């Protein structure tokens, strides 16, 4: 017995507002993009015949295909870096730091920026990476370089650095969750049975945190693919990924081309999520 009766009419009525909201604001718009991407004819109108011409036209362009591959390569690179970095940080914070006060402090320092604006954080990389930026000044002062490095800002390197900074928490968070759910007795048992620390890590910790790694990688994958803010703020106009292409077509009022790129982006994302779901059963993670 609780304040709501199982399968009661009240349960349905309470579910309706949020359900309708998501249908109208997320599901319907997504289906509309799919529909618009198939509109044929000369003018943009729903009365035109359904056709795959828009896709054929887009995919026949070699530079667009290269841009798609480039976006995927960028996502793969950021996934790799944030994956390793995020795991190291998660492991250090949950296993290696023993003082609760330190753990809380470091954890807060890690998480707090996530609650501030991504746009502002991306902009903050401009004075950090610039020719007279903090990073160059520090490297000069340390005597590591003799001249400021130009390539930090308005380059792929700069965008990647900003993306690593923005998305490592996404890769790390689920691992922290999984590490915390491992009972300490498990490690102790393995240790008692004379397993070396490396074996304990490889045979016990790593397999048990795998779902966390995969979920983190999915989050990074989705975010890098859809990221266009970091690319415009830190990359200047020299760089474009699929997200920027969507914006470019939209601003040029090429609605059907925008829809085509959006659908392709969505397809790539769904494929990525499907692969991840084959590796781990996400529903089991919460239990």
């Amino acid at each position, binding site marked *: *017995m609780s304040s709501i009766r199982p399968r009661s009419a009240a349960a349905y009525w309470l579910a309706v507002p949020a359900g309708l909201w998501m249908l109208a*604001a997320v*599901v319907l718009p997504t289906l509309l993009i799919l529909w618009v991407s198939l509109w044929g004819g000369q003018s943009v109108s729903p009365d035109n015949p359904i056709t795959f011409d828009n896709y054929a036209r887009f995919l026949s362009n070699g530079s667009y295909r290269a841009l798609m591959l480039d976006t995927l390569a960028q996502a793969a690179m950021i996934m790799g870096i944030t994956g390793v970095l995020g795991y190291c*940080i998660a492991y250090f914070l949950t296993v290696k730091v023993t003082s609760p006060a330190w753990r809380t402090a470091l954890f807060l320092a890690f998480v707090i920026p996530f609650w501030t604006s991504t746009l502002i954080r991306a902009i903050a990389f401009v*004075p950090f990476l610039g020719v007279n930026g903090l990073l160059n000044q520090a490297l000069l002062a340390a005597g590591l370089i003799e001249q400021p490095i130009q390539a930090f800002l308005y380059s792929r390197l700069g965008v990647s650095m900003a993306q690593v900074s923005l998305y490592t928490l996404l890769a790390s968070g689920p691992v922290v969750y999984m590490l915390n759910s491992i009972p300490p007795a498990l490690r102790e048992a393995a240790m008692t049975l004379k397993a070396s620390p490396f074996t304990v890590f490889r045979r016990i910790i790593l397999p048990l945190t795998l779902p966390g790694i995969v979920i983190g990688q999915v989050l990074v994958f989705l975010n890098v693919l859809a990221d266009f*803010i970091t690319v415009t703020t830190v990359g200047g106009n020299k760089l474009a990924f699929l997200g920027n292409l969507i914006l470019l077509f939209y601003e040029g009022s090429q609605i059907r081309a925008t829809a085509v790129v959006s659908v392709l982006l969505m397809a790539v994302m769904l494929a990525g999520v499907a692969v991840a779901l084959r590796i781990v059963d996400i529903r089991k993670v919460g239990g």
Partner: protein
Amino acid sequence: MHWKTRSRLTSWLLGIVTIGFLLFQWLPMFTMFLLSFAGENGGTTFPMNGVSLHWYRKLWEADLFDDFKPPMLRSFLLALGCSVTTVVLSVTAAQAMRGRFIGSGAYFYLLLLGLMAPGILVGFGFAILTRLLGIEGAWNTTAYVVHVSWALPFGFMTMLAVFNRFDPRLEEAALTLGATRVTAFRRITWPIILPGVIGTALFGFSLSYDEYARTLFTAGSDGTLPLAVMAQLDRQLTPELYAIGTVTTVMSLVAIFLCTFAFWLRSRALRGRPSH
């Protein structure tokens, strides 16, 4: 012995990686804070050319083109509306899930979809929808609907987690003593889930306040703060942008601090009561 030294070595290595990353994460923001206090002739990079509140004053006395006050007010009101709506919808949806109605599995995934769908696609799709319906986009109508759809999954997950830890025997006791279900919810359930509700409200506020992609496609002519910041960045990067960045970041930090403090006060108050 041998393992112990090696384990200490890994601790050091991982510690250096962690501290290095934290520095890398905070230093750009710190640079921005510092440069926002640059002198009148200060540029967007070092040297600072003096220390002043010039750029904050400029922010306050802004002219027509780069006046951030109206977009800031719009962002604030929108975030407030989004926060309240997210709380109401998240609590009702999570309460409905407790009713285990037929189709609740699919319903769970429907609400989670908003978490996976990227802002650029949702924003663009919703722009098509409003265009087909002939509705003019505005920050307080279309952008509001899309913002709530972004914050709702976060709030919903928070409330589900809160209800999972909730002891239903407390409600049972109230019902056995003759309370109606509504009274039991109002007098027993609500006070217990209140910390989760505050968390949900914070999600609703900050996710809306910082949202760029979804707003870009749906806000119409009067933009929110992130749009104004991006427009100014397109025109020219000035320390004024650093000033506005610093102001919003400090506001976020204060909000986090207040929430953490409220949680702490509450948990202390709960601990203080005699147990039964």
